[in-house]
């Protein structure tokens, strides 16, 4: 085990610097809350035209994690698209990129609150996925066990910096948001401190995997 490794319900997992989760034993990469198409949805609803590069940036980072890990299975843990219409309006080059990333691997889209329905783009689609000792779903459930989830975009402050972070206790792991245009929720928020047990730790994303007791 190195600094990035953690264990949950008997499974040994790795928290990658990018915010992705790597499960070596299953050759599986899990990412949460990509929010692809956020800029498009914003403009569609009468908001300002945000820089339209967030899909490219998110997919570039995902590609580099896949190149690095050579994962055989990919789980997108929900809110992969900012809404279903954004998924349909995906630019052709982004669609091609996703299809290329999917080729030769098992790809699972888990539903999130932003994308609660089947997607017209390769891969399997499900509400939640049990796998060995773990279960993958978008939003953590109070009595979850061995549960991997996303949804909250957790963020933790250490020293003068605040970064997206993994939150881990003996029952569950919450992933940081992977998408480029995503904000974060401090672990001190009562939703998160209520969900996570007293033994919870936070593992920061970024070059070095700083690990600390989860600030509450």
């Amino acid at each position, binding site marked *: 085990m190195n600094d990035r490794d953690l264990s949950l319900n008997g499974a040994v997992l790795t928290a990658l610097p990018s915010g992705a989760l790597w499960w070596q034993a299953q050759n599986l990469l899990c990412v949460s809350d990509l929010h692809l198409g956020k800029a*498009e949805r914003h403009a569609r609803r*009468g908001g300002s*035209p945000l*820089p339209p*590069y967030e899909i490219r940036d998110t997919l570039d980072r995902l590609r580099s994690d896949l190149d690095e890990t050579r994962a055989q299975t990919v789980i997108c843990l929900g809110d992969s698209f900012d809404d279903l219409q954004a998924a349909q309006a995906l630019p052709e080059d982004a669609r091609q990129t996703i299809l290329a990333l999917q080729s030769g691997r098992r790809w699972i889209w888990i539903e999130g609150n932003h994308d609660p329905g089947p997607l017209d783009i390769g891969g399997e689609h499900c509400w939640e996925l049990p796998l060995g000792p773990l279960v993958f779903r978008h939003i953590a459930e109070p009595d979850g066990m061995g549960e991997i989830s996303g949804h909250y975009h957790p963020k933790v402050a250490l*020293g003068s910096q605040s970064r997206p972070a993994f939150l881990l206790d003996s029952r569950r792991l919450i992933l940081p948001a992977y998408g480029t*245009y995503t*904000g974060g*929720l401090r672990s001190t928020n009562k939703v998160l401190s209520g969900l996570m047990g007293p033994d919870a730790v936070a593992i920061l994303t970024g070059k*070095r995997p700083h690990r600390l007791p989860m600030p509450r």
Partner: protein
Amino acid sequence: MTRLPPQISDWFASKGWTIHPHQQDMLDRASDPATLLIAPTGGGKTMSGFLPTLADLCADPHEGLHTLYISPLKALAADIKRNLRTPVDEIGLPIRIDDRTGDTPASRKKRQRADPPHILLTTPESLALLTSYDDAHRTFAGLKRVVIDEIHALAESKRGDQLMLALARLQALCPDLRRVGLSATVDDPQAIARYMSTAHTPCALVQADPGPPPDIRMLETDDPPPWAGGGAAYSIPAVLEQIKAHKTTLIFHNTRAQAEIFFHNLWLANEDALPIGIHHGSLDRVQRERVEAAMVRGDLRAIVCTGSLDLGIDWGDVDLVIQIGAPKNVKRLVQRIGRANHRYNAPSKALLVPANRFEVLECRAALDAVRAGDLDGDPRGAGPRDVLCQHILIAACSGPFEADALYQQMINAGPYADLDRQEFEDCLEFCATGGYALRAYDQWQRLQQRPDGLWQLRDPRAAQRIRMNLGTIQDRDLLKVRMKHSRGGKPLGEVEEAFAATLTPGDTFLIGGRVVRYEGLREMTVEVSRRADKKPKIAVFSGTKFATSTKLCDRILHLLRQGDWSALPGHTGDWLDLQSRMSKLPERDRLLIETFPHHAREHVCVYGFAGRNAQQTLGLLLTKRMEEEGLRPLGFVATDYATLIWGLDRLTDPAPLFNVDALKDGLEGWLAGNAVMKRTFRDCATIAGLIERNLPSARKSGRQATFSSDILYDTLRKYDPEHLLLQITRAQALGGLVDFGRIEDMLHRIEDRIDLLRLDRISPFAAPLLLEVGKVPIKGEGAEDLMAREALALMQASGLQNLAT
């Protein structure tokens, strides 16, 4: 000579008043297209602006809006409404006067649009909002005059640029509109005249008698000022004596935090319980208004304040102004001094209190400059383009527009007279599609061109979002502070979110002159209680830190070169002598650099005298260069005069570090991650309409739904480095917070005349810098090491280290 109508001259006579020469001047020029009046405080400036209006309305009854009055302060608009009402009623004129600001109820605002008063008193933001409605042409029909009060203050900021664009629009609606600007004493009146004129209407200048020179000195105290810091606590006994000896004293501070600390200390020393108040922009409005009212009644003997009292409102019987801390800028000092003694033709009385030893020099230099009438001012460049983008969006809200007509209108605004067509097209493109290198949003453009060539909002509902985000004043992320109570406690004011994040329950801080205890964060409000049992942290307020002006820095260097300390207090002269014995005094055309070991670290002190912002930038650039050279810098601190850097290795050859081109390269690269750039970007992107602070359905707990503007900045830099907003950001940061221009000037001036002095210990000039706050750590591998150490310590302390995870 234009005569006043008898009703008005009779009223003057009944009061025993005669009209001031400059008031007569303004009356004579009533039909000039634009006039700028420069007059000291108390010179009946506002009346000068309104006399032509009153005379006109007296002679000719008018339907609808006749005169628009614009002030930088909401409170000033309300105050003028009261002060104008009295003479208008006494003269017996049937004139309707009303004000319109952010505080005006919506129902009254609506009425004003349909049935405007004769005289409307408003602010630049409210005016911009008024022009964004499709009935603007009806509201402003028949408008004859516009009076811009305190134009010198507006002309220094984007608020003025926005105002000039709005006036260009009004001028197109009402071609005969006459403009009047009212200004305090400034260094370059012609620049303001150009600012408020249009291509077709040159602006005439009227100078009122400036009055007698002020009575201004440095405060003499028994204790010398300390070596560093900005609190000036040492001066409290002497300041109290001055308060006792005068009727009402205004005590100005450069920052809100300093005002809080000073007020706290003053209150502790106030054994006679003199009535003293505090006033600054972060205090709750109700609290401020209470202080203002007490001041007008003459109930207060002193008010500790900041720039929030720089302008406007007539403050009863102020007979002394005290400036705590070096004034940084001669022009602002002169304007502040003018706040004392509102009687025309009586000298204003003011005292300067240096907060530390270096500031003694600066205060001395400032006194000389005031006596010589040598004001400073940085020439303002062309109007910034983020304001232009907002103006295009405002125009779109009011209805479909023709690009060509809008461009013609814009170049009729002083600050944008030199705008070229391509720059305008770029802004229009940004407003329509975002202006990205990657074409996107064809379907969801914000503005679209109709078949007839006119531009309009694609989604009319966007108008509401644009109006909600209008304005150029940038609020930092502020949180309200309230007393903790079962049903919403008393509001005290605001603190920065970043400051609130450093608080843990039980911590105490100062706000509104009292120490409060942090209880917790509830939604977006900081809850506090009165239980204060610890030494207070100081609330961090967002007030701008001004850099000492180029002119003052030059005067200080001149003072040092003279070698005659007779005009300075003895303690300061001794200090200068010591520095010249142990090291050397800085000179204007050379760059003094000292290196010395101190507390097991190598130190480098660079005396650039380029002002705080430039010295800060120099610190960032030099430490970056030193890191590249393997000198392992650990941190630095900057003041207006010098930058002190500490690290592990000794600097032996400074010349390569000071190469302008290499520094510029550093600037370009360093631009990427620097917080100053990101902050500037956030401001520009918000004004230009890319970032929306206010949304129609603001979700209270929706924090995770928003993401920081830093992400947009990083994304643009990576994929679209030549994007308009990055160009705007670079231009503004270089001239503003980064202030690279002053570094270039300094390097240009010294050429290769660098004096590197190796000392065996810290020098008398460098020692105060070690005591300065605001040290900047260098975030490299070292910072990561520190984070790792802290995380480990927390894991060990919590016992979690031993749990299997």
